């Protein structure tokens, strides 16, 4: 099994079939095309997306339905093409695609990018960060709105 040196997890073993292929990279990281999903039982349901090409590059994500159980996925045609998914029909979260919200850690608390979920075709592992310009979703959706926040 191939192994990968990472800044966050040390050495990670992975199977080549588990790799997510981003033919266009991600916005801001257009040259980073291959990521390995890393799940640590202690930090479930968080899923880390570890770059195969840059040991220090790692995104922290959550399944989009954990963030918003009624999330509506709307993928534009160019992104469907990247996923090699037939045009005119949206894939279903969980059945056809894995849909992940990228987290970012602001001083005010963690936020999830619902404007542009990472979508992975479960059949071929082709992946894209699908910007949904016509949705009302925020790129900084607060995971724990202020009232509900548990302050330490």
């Amino acid at each position, binding site marked *: 099994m191939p192994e990968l040196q*990472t800044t*966050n*997890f*040390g*050495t*990670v*073993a*992975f*199977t080549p079939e*588990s790799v997510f292929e981003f033919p266009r990279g*991600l*916005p*801001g*990281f257009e040259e980073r095309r291959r990521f*390995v*999903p*890393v*799940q*640590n039982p202690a*930090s*479930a*349901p*968080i*899923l*880390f997306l*570890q770059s195969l090409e840059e040991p*220090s*590059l*790692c*995104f*922290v994500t*959550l*399944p989009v*339905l*954990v963030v918003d*159980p009624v999330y509506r996925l709307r993928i534009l045609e160019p992104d469907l093409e990247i996923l090699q998914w037939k045009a005119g029909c949206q894939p279903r*979260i*969980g*059945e056809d695609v*894995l849909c992940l919200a*990228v*987290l*970012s*850690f*602001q001083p005010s608390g*963690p936020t999830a*990018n619902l*404007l*542009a979920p990472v979508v992975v075709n*479960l059949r071929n592992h082709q992946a894209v*960060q699908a*910007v949904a*310009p*016509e949705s009302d979703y925020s*790129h*900084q959706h607060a*995971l*724990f709105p202020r009232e509900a926040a*548990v302050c*330490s």
Partner: protein
Amino acid sequence: MLMMSRRQGETILIGDEIEIVIAHIGRSRVKVGIRAPRQTPVIAQEVKLVSEENRAAAQAPPPAVLRALVAQLQPAAHTLRPPSDEGSVRQDAGTKT
């Protein structure tokens, strides 16, 4: 902001090198053609937002921050729908050293 009314097929010029054509007007969206020098980046505003957000998100947070997040997620993950249907992809557990 300068506002201009244009019909389908009409063009706006910005300086000598940038040309914007209103290619098609639909019910709720317009298709715009843009001709600009190669070195002028042209992207949708959302893509820039996502790009900045990705840069901010690109490093895993300190373990303590992550632990706090997981602790906060636990009750939520039980009351909300569990991500069981997201688990069908095979994932390799990371080994923390």
